[in-house]
């Protein structure tokens, strides 16, 4: 079908070859990009994984510290101290670009608060409460960090998937197609050349024969 429409001309062949070249270069470029993205992905993934481990650890420690504080100082002291010390955290998301990919980055204000900002007196609370709140602040920090990284990771995964799809399309569909077409045109052109040469040979032979015949005469 397609072949029918193919006009087997030399200029066509040149055009096809140009396209093939372009596709191959595009593929290499995309592969490069994918490799870069993969490298970035691995880096971020490692961070996320280790961050998850760290978060787990801190979360466990924070929970133990809270259990301690509630058990030793009494739930009344701990919960009311929490009520006094509670406050919001500043949080903002803005874009950054990696390899031309737009990725949301999270920026947050200070999570940790000093003893003064917690709003309770030291004689009415304990070091255990300090520790529990510090650990939970750490946990929150880690969680926010992790959230930013996970967002980045997700964006990278999407980008890698798109790039891979493109590479695959070039590799498996476009390039083979062009190659097939080129070779087909080449084959037609070759065939045509062979025929021409044969015809030429025949023509030459006939002329020679005619010449011989004429010479004999």
């Amino acid at each position: 079908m397609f072949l029918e429409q193919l006009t087997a001309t030399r200029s066509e062949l040149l055009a096809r070859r140009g396209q093939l070249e372009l596709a191959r270069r595009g593929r290499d470029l995309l592969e490069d990009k994918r490799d870069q993205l993969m490298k970035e992905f691995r880096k971020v993934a490692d961070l996320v994984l280790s961050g998850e481990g760290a978060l787990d650890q801190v979360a466990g420690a924070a929970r133990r510290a809270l259990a301690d504080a509630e058990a030793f100082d009494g739930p009344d002291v701990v919960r009311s101290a929490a009520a006094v010390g509670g406050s919001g955290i500043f949080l903002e998301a803005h874009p950054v670009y990696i390899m031309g990919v737009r990725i949301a980055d999270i920026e947050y204000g200070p999570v940790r608060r000093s003893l003064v900002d917690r709003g309770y007196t030291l004689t009415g609370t304990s070091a255990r409460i300090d520790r529990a709140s510090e650990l939970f602040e750490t946990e929150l920090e880690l969680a926010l960090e992790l959230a930013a990284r996970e967002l980045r990771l997700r964006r990278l995964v999407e980008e890698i998937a798109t790039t891979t799809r493109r590479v695959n399309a070039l590799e498996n569909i476009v390039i083979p197609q062009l190659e097939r077409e080129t070779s087909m045109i080449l084959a037609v052109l070759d065939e045509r050349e062979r025929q021409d040469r044969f015809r030429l040979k025949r023509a030459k032979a006939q002329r020679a024969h005619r010449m011989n015949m004429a010479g004999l005469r």
Partner: protein
Amino acid sequence: MIGYEYGNTRLRVRAGRLLDADVYRGLLSSATLDGMLGRLAGGPYGRAIESALGRYRGLHRLDEAVRIHLSRQLADVLAFYSGEIRDRLRFYESRWDVRNIRTILRTLNQPVRGEALGPLLVAAGSLDEAALSELANQNDVRAAMDLLAVWQLPSPTVIRRLRHAMPGFLQTGDMSILEAALDGSFGDSIVDFVSGARSADSLVSLLHEEVDRLNLMGALRRHRAAREVTHADPFVAMAGGRVSAQVWAELAEVDDRVDVVAQLDGLLPGAWRGPLAAWVEHGELWVLEGELDDAATEAGIARFRLGDPLGIDVPLGFIIRKEAEARNLRLVGRAIVYDLAREDTFDRLIGVR
């Protein structure tokens, strides 16, 4: 010394029903909090658990049961004595008044009222269950303060200090101003009590030591956060200890932990030297605090066993043991709910071995 026989005997018999290592092991082996409560319901906590079951869920149930039981036991201790002895014990229990008022004020200061105050307040000392719930039901800090002033509870000293702090609080909304007044009033009443106490007995030394411990921890925490503290100082040393407020204040100027300990040398009980030396090494305040608290509790428990059988040591020791038991149970419940390591938890229980 007539007057201790009845109460001390009751408490000594009652001490036989304190939870022991086997009970704690059993409780820790429960798979769920409900299982733990079911187990606990068989013993002296039965009635408290019965009243807690219908009202709350989860850890609140345990906390409520522990609270009810502790409130009743502390009220019993007062009921077993009369006259001067009861006054002295009531004074010791007035720590809970300060604590309850602080909890109520902190909670009332919140723009949005969170969880109920009910399972938090231990009715011991001068403020009973009814007074506490009426206070907790007020709309704001000011109203609760008015009620306290009208009732003249828990003591004129506390009210006077709170009343003075009120304008500052109303202007800035800074809770720590009221809290500092509350803590300060407790310190003041200790000074009054100690000067009025007929003899320097073990209650006086207990109070001194408790104030010193609170001040020490406050000063060290303040020291740790020294760079952060810019305006309002969250630490004001309480009166009523052996170490003067000046010493505590000066600690803020000292940089090194070694120097801090050196500065305090000779002022604090000998038993604190070890934990303090360890703190110089590791620098973790919560570890130091745990060690000091445990040592104080152990000493209180020993007081029950070794102190004068016809003296104030027995009720004081009993109160301390009961408070330690409440702490143990809360820890066990949390170990079950948060799935913490059971053996570690058992080792952290106090007064069990």
